[in-house]
């Protein structure tokens, strides 16, 4: 369990409840996104973050609004955890003019500089050097902003990550590399694609590297706090491996999943669910009445339904906008 013994700070019911709410909002958003997709309302393709909520919420909970993140094709959770608004998110997923990117980006490319989100990226290793560039920019501008690169274990196969880590360490850039290791790169178990130890790859660059249970939001938060503080203080980049699991397929259409067993999926959902575990901790350790959480969930569900309804009713961008924003 998350906060057992060992002299950690006393449980803060309000802070825990906030983490719970943020994780629940992402889960609920993703369930609704799935529903919109299978009913044919959502064009294109979408990758759900269900199961991995503790990573985004834990890391983003220690970031300031002016800190930067770069995100991935499985990015809705990062965007929401960094402060994105539900309506504009749904509107973008549905290809509406009110979306974060005026319907030009879609599920895989949500960007919102107001919340420090430099964009979700369709190239798995593509954003790691962009985050390093944001870190370099912060350093040159003399701010103490930190840049976080979220990427999956699939990005470990692309060279840009290593070029980026090398330079980040050389120049002590304020960058946190968060590897969401969900055990599968698309449809392939990653023991077939990753040689050696993941953390050794970061250590080879003399980058502080740490592993944490990505299903335990408090553990993620604690580890991220330490590494972000360090980066902010000018002590250079760090690498945080969060072991996690996506409950659904690589994307919504990946429904039969022959590359892993239903038993394995059930075991993660039943034993290591980040929401269920935090809920238990809230009840057991902070004596929070389950009714409080039920009420919170009801409120979030209503928010989600309202935002989705509003987005469904929103207008698509007019064809005249197709040539807009090719050049600034």
């Amino acid at each position: 369990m998350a906060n057992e013994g060992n002299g950690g700070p006393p449980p803060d019911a309000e802070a825990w409840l906030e983490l719970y709410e943020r994780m629940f909002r992402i889960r609920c958003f993703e369930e609704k996104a799935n529903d919109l997709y299978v009913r044919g309302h959502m064009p294109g393709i979408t990758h759900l973050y269900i199961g991995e909520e503790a990573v985004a919420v834990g890391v983003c909970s220690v970031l300031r609004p002016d800190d930067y993140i770069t995100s991935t094709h499985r990015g809705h959770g990062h965007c929401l955890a960094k402060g994105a608004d539900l309506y504009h998110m749904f509107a973008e997923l549905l290809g509406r003019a009110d979306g974060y990117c005026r319907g030009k980006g879609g599920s895989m490319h949500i960007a919102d500089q107001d919340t420090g989100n430099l964009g979700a990226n369709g190239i798995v290793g593509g954003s790691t050097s962009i985050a390093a560039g944001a870190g370099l920019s912060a350093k040159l501008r003399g701010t103490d902003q930190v840049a976080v690169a979220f990427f999956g274990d699939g990005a470990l196969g692309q060279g840009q990550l290593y070029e980026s880590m090398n330079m980040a360490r050389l120049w002590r850039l304020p960058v946190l590399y968060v590897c969401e290791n969900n055990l599968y790169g698309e449809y392939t178990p990653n023991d077939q694609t990753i040689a050696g130890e993941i953390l050794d790859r970061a250590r080879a660059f003399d980058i502080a590297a740490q592993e944490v249970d990505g299903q335990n939001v408090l553990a993620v938060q604690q580890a991220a706090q330490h590494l972000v503080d360090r980066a902010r203080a000018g002590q250079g980049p760090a690498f945080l491996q969060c072991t996690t699991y996506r409950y659904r397929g690589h994307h919504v259409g990946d429904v039969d999943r022959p590359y892993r067993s239903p038993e394995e999926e059930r075991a993660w959902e039943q034993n290591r669910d980040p929401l269920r575990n935090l809920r238990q901790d809230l009840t057991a350790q902070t004596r929070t009445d389950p009714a409080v959480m039920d009420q919170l969930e009801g409120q979030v569900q209503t928010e989600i339904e309202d935002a989705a309804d509003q987005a469904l009713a929103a207008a698509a961008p007019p064809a005249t906008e197709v040539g807009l924003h090719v050049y600034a």
Partner: protein
Amino acid sequence: MAHDIIMPMLGMNQDTGTLVRWLKAAGDPVAQGDPVIEIATDKITVELEAPAAGRLSTLLAAEGAEVPVGQAMAYILAEGEEMPSKDPETGALSPLDPSPAALSPDSRVEASPVARRLAASHGLNLSDIPAAGGRIGRQDVEAHLARQTPSASRNPLASPKARRMARAASVDLAQVSGSGPEGAVLAADLEDRTSPPPARATPATDTIVPSPKWQVMAQRLAECWRTVPHFHLSRTADATQLQAWRQACREKYDQRVTVTDLLVKILAASLREHPALNASWQEEGAILRHQEVNIGLAVAVADGLLVPVIRQADHRSVTEIAVERERLVTAAQADTLAMADLEGGTFTVTNLGMFGVERMNPIIKPPEAAILGVGAIKEQVTPVEGQPAIRPLMDLTLGCDHRALEGATVSRFLQTFVSYLEAPLLLLD
């Protein structure tokens, strides 16, 4: 609450899925997560699970059926619950809305995408094209086109420039010996032929071969009149305030200001408010709205008609417009206009008022969507507050491209334009 089991979208560009078989029968009790239906798409076969516990309703689709994405195939009903007789959300359940273009009558005709595009690019109705097989293919469209076009007599070889010169000078290329590759006629081969042909013996007529400029004008206007569906709307306006304004300008500024200058000023302000008129129809079926308001002025010159353009008229003062107008008209008459002076127009004004013409139906200058024809200001008797009064009145006629505009929009524009013309102080608002 009844839970629907829909045909899910499982991949990009999927419109339907196949119901392979039912794993439960109607009325069977089901637990949440029980497999209920096996479905297949072109990529994958998968079992759909019950979204809730309950009893399976009547089955709404048969095994083997192609079911559209989003359509319910059955419901899971709670104890004592009836199947929704008509799903109130039916509208919301429909798959991605087809684009309005796909709803045209032609969308019902079976045709390949290539054929559809080819037909559209030649302005053909698919329903007019006979299909050799069950659906119209490219060959069918091409065969149809070939039937429509009378086979042209074999053309002599010539460069595009030589062809253009020959057409302008009414020279038959077959009669010219070419000096180019494979005997192609080049511009140089025509240089001695482009003088007017000798007058014919018929004494009653004179053949005049107009200048290339005139030829271009003739060609463009004929093409425009043939292909652009025009409509015209007119209004009469009281020019009392307009004349007072011009008088004031003449007293205040050294630069001569004309009625046309003031009309350009008003027009620019009106177009800013009604961007629909500052637009162009695109052959691919879109309307382009122009960011800049560039107003062309039709200027008669010795050998044709030129339309130099006052760029960004909405950003210019009356005197700036007057200075530019004077420069353009002078240059047009001296034939010293630069290419840039003739390009980029988004709307044209033609004023024949100085010749006493009261009203005209102008032809637009493609690809602009509209043109304003201005008639003479004439003193006329008109009722003012129930009494006959004499006022300077003028007729204004808008010629419009009906593909880009319709009557109501243009009427609203005219309303704005006339209100400014009759009370120019409104421009200060």
